[in-house]
């Protein structure tokens, strides 16, 4: 077991000896850590180490096969499907492949969390436009996802992740398909969100991105090695 941070009351996410495996093989095991509100975390590790799986545990797309994961103080295994959906509305996720609905415009895709929450999108049009402007996609609002570049899609995914002002933002390789300049822009957006009090977790291979973030905000770097999670050392 590797304990990165002692658990304490009020943490948005808490893992206790959590693990995940399938077909009798443990991919992740013995993970214990807490994520405080407003904290900023990077998650690193070699390809296939389980970074994406770890993130999926944090928004209950996967459930721990050992130990416990508490999200906002609740164990997803104890929640109904509707309650899990409600919980996910408090978490914004930027997927590695963005996952848009290709038949909807970018504006509709970004507004999707509002739509599924049955909120009046037209009443929040001003916020939506402001958000699209914030991520630099005001001109692409009516474009379909396949018409956008990789960087634009990543920014749109970020906009969708934060449209409902979630308490946690999880990003899986958000700069994986973009150049350094765009990586910096995306990082700046995430740093701004963190300064608004959001808890940020970014899975990335990009050490330069981590160093750039450290220059702007207090961050904690976690590394997955051999199926367990540990704090990264001073090499970063």
């Amino acid at each position: 077991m590797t304990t990165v941070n002692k658990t304490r009351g009020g943490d948005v996410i808490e893992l206790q000896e959590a693990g995940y495996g399938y077909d009798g093989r443990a991919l992740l095991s013995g993970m214990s850590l807490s994520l405080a509100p407003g904290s900023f975390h990077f998650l690193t590790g070699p390809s296939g180490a389980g970074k994406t799986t770890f993130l999926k545990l944090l928004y209950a797309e996967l459930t721990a096969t050992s130990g416990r994961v508490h999200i906002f103080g609740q164990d997803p295994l104890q929640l109904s499907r509707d309650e899990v959906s409600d919980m996910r509305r408090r978490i914004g996720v930027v997927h590695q492949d963005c996952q848009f609905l290709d038949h909807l415009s970018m504006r509709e895709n970004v507004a999707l969390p509002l739509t599924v929450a049955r909120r009046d999108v037209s009443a929040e049009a001003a916020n939506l436009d402001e958000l699209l402007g914030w991520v630099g996609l005001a001109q692409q609002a009516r474009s379909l996802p396949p018409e956008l570049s990789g960087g634009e899609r990543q920014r749109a995914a970020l906009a969708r992740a934060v449209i409902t002002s979630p308490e946690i933002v999880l990003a899986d390789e958000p700069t994986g398909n973009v150049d350094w300049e765009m990586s910096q822009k995306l990082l700046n957006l995430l740093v701004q969100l963190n300064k608004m009090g959001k808890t940020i977790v970014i899975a990335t291979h990009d050490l330069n991105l981590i160093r750039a973030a450290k220059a702007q905000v207090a961050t904690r770097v976690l590394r997955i090695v051999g199926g367990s999670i540990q704090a990264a050392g001073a090499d970063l």
Partner: protein
Amino acid sequence: MTALLSPESGADRVVPPSGFTASLTVFSAGAMAFLAVFAMALSLATSRLADRWGAELARSSTVRISAPEEQMAAQTAAVVAILQTTPGVRAARALTDAEQTALLEPWFGPDLPLDTLPVPQLIEVIEDADGFDPQGLRLRLQAEAPGAVLDDHTRWRRPLVEAANRLRTLGIMSLLLIAATTGAMITLAANAALSANAQVVSVLRLVGARDRYIANAFVRRFTLRALVGALGGTALGMISIALLPKASTAGGFLTGLGFQGVHWFWPLIVPPLAALVALIATRAAALRVLKGLT
């Protein structure tokens, strides 16, 4: 039903349009509605036939007198006298030679020399509402007119009414089977649509959509498709029934097949019923599939 009627802001837009399953659903619902209209027409027509055959045959009987020519007139008069004093008999009369010739004409042609043939004398008996006691009447006829045989049409009436009743039951069973088949086909189409849109469903779940919201997007779409298809099929079915040949030209068993009077309103329940079946089938299929997802 709320999901169907309420203007969902973008709820049904989240599922991409799928032309193939849409066309299949509309066609299937239309075809089933068309068949349902015919099954309904058959059921209603056989119901009327059963009532009519039962009522008409039950109200009339025949006495057949087979006697030597010299006794025929006397026995006929005796039988008519008996019948006129029998409780439950409203009228009794001996058929004329012309009427008997007309009855035999389909088999022997118009030039039948009735007077040269030993044809029995027929007496038509019309019952009143209470009817008569056939057993008692038979005994009296046996005593006073040995050549007279009473035929109260029971042996004709019973199988006819039974046949008509069975046809009516078959019609109702057909309607139920059509409803079940519609449900099954829409379930298959909904499952296909859910599989084809697995990625969409996954994204919706991840951004916080509840199962009911996702299901409603499919339910609304399939229900409306079934309604549109059933409206077309029902209209076509009703037009086809209306264009069936009239009884005067078709005759025979087809007499009265179709809708009469207020029965024309019955097919109008087919489209809403088809929509209801689609709603239930799609909701059940969608919720079952969604429960298998995280």
